[in-house]
């Protein structure tokens, strides 16, 4: 029977192995995180480098299908991902201080959300001094593909960031912003 003509029950049964795999994957591949909410799922394997604290809420989906997602926290870094977040493949989330991602945020592929200039290098003994400034992404925001969020940025709730933008500074809630650097284009 083809997928197209399948009954809802049949299609749910067909989707079951993938669902189970993604649920189990969350337990296996996110085991280094400090906290994982209910029903969090991972598709393929994300990389987790946890030297600080990584908290992941409920119903979070992490897609690492074509390029893995990198979650990296430094010795004093906190990554706080709220409920219902979707992060697409190849994104880097890196915290030396604090990165907070609000509920139901969608992050596109190959985004960089890092509170330092160099993302993902988290523990360098006697390395150069690192200046981190925390990042906050409000509830329901949407980052399109290849968005770079610079240290110290704050994105308001429900804001939409256009593809390829570089966000520096504050984006007010409920606005569409884009460009390098991202400027407000219009209301959502």
């Amino acid at each position: 029977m083809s997928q197209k003509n399948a009954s809802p029950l049949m299609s749910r049964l067909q989707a079951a192995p993938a669902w189970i795999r993604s649920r189990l994957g969350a337990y296996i591949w996110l085991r280094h995180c400090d906290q994982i909410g209910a029903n969090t799922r991972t598709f393929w394997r994300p990389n987790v480098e946890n030297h600080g604290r990584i908290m992941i809420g409920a119903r979070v989906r992490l897609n690492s299908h074509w390029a893995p997602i990198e979650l990296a926290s430094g010795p004093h870094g906190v990554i706080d991902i709220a409920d219902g977040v979707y992060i697409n493949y190849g994104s880097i989330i890196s915290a030396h201080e604090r990165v907070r991602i609000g509920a139901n945020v969608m992050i596109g592929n190959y985004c960089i959300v890092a509170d330092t200039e160099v993302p993902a290098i988290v523990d360098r003994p006697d390395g150069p001094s690192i200046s981190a400034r925390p990042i906050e992404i409000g509830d329901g925001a949407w980052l399109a593909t290849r968005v770079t969020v610079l240290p110290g940025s704050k994105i308001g709730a429900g804001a939409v960031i256009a593809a390829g933008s570089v966000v520096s500074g504050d984006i007010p809630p409920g606005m569409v912003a884009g460009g390098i650097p991202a400027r407000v284009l219009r209301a959502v």
Partner: protein
Amino acid sequence: MKTLSWWDAFRARRWLQDCTSVGTDPYLIGKPTINVDGEMHIGKCFSLASRPVASHLTAGQGAILRIGDHVSIGSGAGIAAFQHVSIGNDTQIGAFVVIMDTNFHGAPGDQSVQHDCQPVQIGNGCRIGSRVTITRGAVIGDGAEILAGSVVSSVIPPGACAAGAKARIIGRAGDLASRWDSAAASLPELLMNSLNLSSPPDLDASRIPIDRWTDASVRDLLDALSARFGVALDRISIDQSRTFAEIAAAVEQALPERSPRP
């Protein structure tokens, strides 16, 4: 701070074994691609991320790639030397950065490609953001800062902060507060509108076209400046400017000291 485990140290040594010289304590996250046909010198305490996307370092035939001490490079970086690329000490380089001293390079081992190279030089203590492209002939001075997404193909003086494609100097390195919003970044647009120019002027080079400098347009400009930056310039100080750079300097001077972002 975590010290490197013997396994990390061993793997880093093995992955960097083709390099001509490697300093103490290299730290690699994931496996990079290293092609050495010429010389590759890496200083001590080198950090390189290759996850989620692998980074690659290439030194072509007879080329020298020299990386200083305490350099850290993010993931997905591509650094190719076909003549000479040097990166100074304590430089931090973001993710998905491309640094090449040629316009083009073929697959590893492909000898048919004719390279047209100009050496690239990056100074000590530079900070280079994510997704920056540094093309041939670029010289970045000590302590300069390149913001994310820029394309650099020229000379950036020491201690400057540059951004954009192609990168322009927008301020001093280390001024954290609203650098993108410094006067130089939005002045071109403002000048274009108030002086009725056909395109945004190049602040560094161009002189003010004298026929556009009328009473009405200067009044427009002063109004726009006060609306945009909250600075009240007087007519006399701005009337003496002959170039756009002088206007930018006057505006920068009149700006109140910015407080750092909380």
